[in-house]
């Protein structure tokens, strides 16, 4: 009886052995992909996949990291990745692929297939950062910045406020972008990544807007910062105006926004913005200057710039702010309301109502 029981337990143990999980592969037999680039191939139906692979060393020092760049062209991304495996000596691991770049020409054509592949693969992290590479992903990934302490970290640190916190850098995650691709009334944006002129670092200071299919608009750095403040409520940025021959620079410490949309035939979108901060630069001996007057001037200037930006975005028929979604949410919109909004969108008017407060002059007398 007891022996039979033991035998049964032994058999059960044997049965669970073949059900073991997803492949035992030691960490030193894996090749970590730190960044992935997808470009358009030499023919329009082909993709060119570029992988930046980390070669780890036990001692990590700045500028001494080693990476390997592999590139392959194939009619689909899956095929390209399968083919790339034959070029390397270890198993490719996308678990640490934190940055995914799309070439500009690819974005202009549409990225439906690459997104499809990225969302299906379970080893691609949904928190990966997305970016638009200019002129193409291969060129950008080829760059090896001097400051990299471990492979690929210069790109990771640029995004997500992990390293540098710049108001010119917008962070877009894969999951967010995929959602924006399918969400009614909200469009995606991508930071544009270029090589710096000195070829020693990346330059991320512009943003691109896409509609559901392809690229529609690229902003200038100044507009990018404005978009970051108004859409992402990014508070580590500045607002600057000329004042009595010098510049007054207000460093923001808090930004709040609130959108209201009227329910008319041609809706009016009002963007309320409340920002406060301290003066980082101002004319000398300014301590007791006329603060309300400066605040007023800042507000009018800011309102004008933001309004221009909103109209510019509207005219290129994208909606990265998500006004459409807001409208539908507010007025219980069905497909009828959405149709109406879509027809009215090229005509709608924007109003910006900002309140800018100078908390501190930034100096002690």
């Amino acid at each position: 009886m007891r022996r039979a029981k033991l035998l049964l337990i032994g058999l059960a143990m044997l049965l669970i052995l073949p059900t073991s999980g997803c492949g035992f592969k030691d960490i030193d037999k894996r090749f970590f992909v730190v960044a992935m680039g997808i470009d358009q191939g030499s023919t329009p139906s082909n993709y060119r996949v570029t992988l930046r692979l980390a070669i780890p060393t036990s001692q990590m020092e700045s500028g001494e990291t080693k990476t390997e760049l592999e590139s392959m062209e194939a009619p689909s991304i899956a095929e390209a990745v399968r083919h790339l495996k034959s070029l390397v000596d270890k198993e490719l691991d996308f678990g640490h692929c934190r940055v995914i770049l799309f070439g500009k020409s690819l974005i202009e054509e549409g990225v439906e297939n690459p997104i499809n592949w990225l969302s299906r693969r379970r080893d691609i992290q949904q928190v990966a950062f997305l970016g638009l590479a200019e002129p193409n992903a291969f060129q950008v990934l080829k760059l090896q910045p001097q400051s990299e302490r471990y492979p690929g970290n210069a790109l990771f640190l640029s995004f997500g406020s992990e390293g540098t916190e710049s108001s010119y850098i917008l962070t877009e995650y894969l999951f967010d972008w995929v959602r924006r691709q399918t969400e009614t009334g909200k469009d995606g944006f991508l930071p544009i990544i270029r090589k710096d002129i000195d070829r020693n670092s990346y330059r991320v200071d512009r943003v691109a807007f896409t509609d559901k299919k392809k690229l529609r608009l690229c902003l200038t750095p100044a507009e990018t910062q404005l978009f970051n403040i108004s859409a992402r409520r990014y508070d580590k940025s500045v607002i600057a105006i000329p004042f009595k021959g010098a510049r007054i620079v207000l460093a923001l410490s808090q930004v709040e926004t609130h959108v209201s949309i009227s329910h008319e035939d041609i809706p009016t979108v009002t963007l309320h913005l409340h920002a406060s901060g301290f003066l980082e630069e101002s004319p000398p001996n300014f301590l007791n200057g006329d603060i309300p007057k400066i605040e007023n001037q800042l507000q009018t200037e800011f309102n004008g710039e933001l309004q221009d930006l909103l109209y510019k975005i509207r005219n290129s028929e994208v909606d990265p702010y998500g006004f459409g979604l807001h409208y539908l949410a507010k007025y219980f919109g069905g497909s009828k309301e959405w149709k109406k909004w879509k027809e009215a969108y090229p005509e709608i008017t924007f109003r910006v109502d900002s309140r800018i407060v100078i908390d501190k002059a930034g100096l002690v007398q």
Partner: protein
Amino acid sequence: MIEEIRNEFKNATDLFTNVLDNGFWAVEIAYFPSLCDEKIKDGVLVPLSYRFDPDEFRRMLNSNPKYEHADDPKEWANLILKGYVLLKIEGKHFSFKSDRTPVTQIDAPTVESTLQGPQTAFTEDLNINMFLLRLRYNVPSLTVEPFDKGTLSRTSLFVVYDHRLVNAKILKALYKQLDKVKLDLLQSSGQMVKQLTEKNHRVFPTILQTERPDRVADMLSKGKIAVMLNGSRFVLLLPVRLYDFMHAMDDEYEAFWMVRLLILVRYIAVALTITLPALYIAIVSYNPEIFRVQIAFTIDGSRAGVPYPSFIEVFIMLFMIEALIEASIRLPRIVGSTATTVGGLILGQAAQQAGLVSSIMIIVTSVVAISNFVIPNTTFSQSVRLMKYLFIIIAMIYGISGVAVLFFALIVYLCGLRSFGEPYLALFTNETKELPK
């Protein structure tokens, strides 16, 4: 009488038998000199020899509590073995209690030391232990029930409890288990624990062993039962919960928030020591994306020279640390520090430089070893030590999800565990039972 006793102890040459004749009476006497002490001189020899007075001697026989009638010949052998002197006076049989009690020093606790708590531990003498307990928990309702266990050793043990607080059901269950005890030699409390534990409950201890009188007093006041064994430093306490094993007596004596922090540290240490080697295997070999990028690359780099898969690496290091722990228990104290130095410092360093294990594995091993010793109770600490191997085996086959499922299964097992009918993983118990008026 001498004839019969001699028959029973045929080869016991150290048995002393004689007929003492003082001219008035001829008294037969039998005892083991090694088991009896000097009391025999004042109690028997002097009144019988030069101070002899028949009337006074008879009075003494009746009034001295050390003298008792021993009319049943079947009991004689047993009495002699317990250190009694057997006498036959005027045709009647008496026993005189003269058992030797070695003078035992009460010394400091060795396995459950505290910083500022009481510095006394139980001894190997039952009477002194009872004194130590009465010193801390002296109430009229304290009940002591004597038992004898072990067919050869006939070790005496006390079941001690406060009858106002004790749960009668648990007491009954204990008696039932005590009846089942089948041992020839009962020499340590650990044997008793094994006998009292159900067969399928043997992974985690369900009976607490302690050498601290203050802990026993504390537990008695909570309605628990103590089993004290003659010849053992350790007292058994039951029923207990998992939290009692994680409880150091310092927790009662130190500052409130500090104690809370230390308790938290202890539980984290247990979780680490159980899961860390398994997590190392699971993360390194199945899911390296759980690490941050930096550490993934560092481990990747340091593992680059290691020829074996991660689980062999873990087994090498864990074997070394287990052997080291085992060696330091067996080694004499003077050589002990040498073993630690050789094992810990030199071997660890050398193993890493030789490329046998990665440097991260050295850290994992040390964390596991140190965390294991944070647990205040030795028995529980050993159970935890054993558990980690189960986790390692599962991690080898199933990776991180296996570890998670096994951890869940462990909690389920602990929830199902009972210590004498009381839930083992109960978070709350009613601590203040109402006293009958």
